[in-house]
């Protein structure tokens, strides 16, 4: 069994296999709006590899983190659509 890490996405607890990325955890909770575009549209991940910047979220109070390149850690607090 792979090790499980537990993090919190918009107040909801989610379990992920160790080595998972935060973007996958966010989508797993059913959340699709990661950020707001400059004209207010909801956006989610596009490239999955750290180039498009559409998956930016707030992680442990730090804004603009690319969730597709950030590994899930126990106790992480993730907030989207800010």
């Amino acid at each position: 069994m792979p090790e499980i890490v537990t993090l919190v996405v918009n107040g909801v607890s989610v379990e992920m296999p160790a080595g998972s990325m935060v973007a996958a955890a966010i989508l797993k909770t059913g959340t699709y709006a990661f950020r707001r575009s400059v004209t207010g549209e909801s956006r989610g991940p596009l490239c999955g590899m750290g180039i498009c910047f559409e998956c930016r979220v707030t992680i442990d109070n730090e804004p603009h983190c690319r969730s597709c390149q950030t590994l899930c850690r126990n106790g992480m607090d993730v907030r989207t659509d800010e």
Partner: protein
Amino acid sequence: MSDAHHVCDLLVVGAGPAGLAAAWRAAQSGLRVSVVDDNPAAGGQIWRGGGPPEAQLWFERIRSVDVEMITGARVFQQPGPRTLLAETNSGVCELNYKTVVLATGARERFLPFPGWTLPNVMGAGGLQALVKTGLPIKGKRVVVAGTGPLLLAVVSYFRARGADVLLIAEQAPVLRLVRFGAGLIGDPGKLLQAWGLRKDFSRKGAKAQRRTRYLSGCWVAEAHGDQKLEGVTLVRGGKRWQVACEYLASGFHLVPNVELAELLGCEVEGGSVRVDEFQQTTVASVYSAGETTGIGGLELSLVEGEIAGLAAAGKHEAARPLFAVRARHRKFADLLNRTFALRNELKQLATPETIVCRCEDVTLERLRGHRSWRAAKLQTRCGMGPCQGRVCGGAVEFLFGWRAESVRPPILPVKIDSLIRNKSVKSAFK
């Protein structure tokens, strides 16, 4: 924030197949080698999360030699000769080298169409990357669209994880695909690989998994949904129809990542880094290998990486026997790129209201009438957001024939802290 410092003979930027091959060959030849990559683990996009047995062989090779692996570090600036700076989660690291191999890979080409900015519309490789890093896809209805061999690999991966892949919309016309198949006859391995993938799609899965239809000459004209994707409109031979789905994985082949090469002053030709027979760029201390020098797939990347690693270590004669292998894979790459050339109809998909630049929300209408990307940037901010044109660049090149004219540091958005903490950066920004 803490600052780290690494000194090596050969720095390899990018830990995908080309970078690993270069690092292994150079380390075997006695050089002190460091590899830097922006992802948390080595393997690049293709071997993300482990990869097949062939990947394990290369990881084993890297472990068998003395190579310093620096992951989670994004190279953003060249503060002085033979020095690069990378941002990590804990600060900035300075990388000093005598020679560098740029194996920065490629990204997907994205084309704008109505609805492509909706959440859950992703790149083909994009959705695959998310599934590889923990997104459950079982039972989800997925449409895979765009062009290129990546689509087949992606579908095979999704199906193996229980996704309900409804169809593959490949824009290339059937005649070109048939010629592609015929061109593979001289290369039985690749033909078998392609045939194996096709066979897999037409088979019903053990748990009533439905077949995945492969439609050539077909593309997505529109993605629909209120807040997120709910379905797509497909076009094929004058016929239009709608399909409901949870995810659209859409990518139009690949574009080389050449920003760092340009920053180092290397000549770029037709969107790829120009190299000589030893994979040396137009700057003597800089080599390049893999997709960065032209899209050609895994085998070509590996052999180019090996040649670059050997040449960087001064073992030119040992590199020569690999030229024939490279030539064979380049022939295949040429065939690939001809087969999956983009059709003109795709230029008509975006409407005046369709967003082209997703960072700055610049619509097609606002871009029309400008003579160059530079002019459009100045007037509309197209390509001036955080992605620095990495997404819309591939689109405006196809739609208007525009190319980026210059690259300026930092080549990625970085924290102000990263810019001011390093004294060599301070002087570079004076």
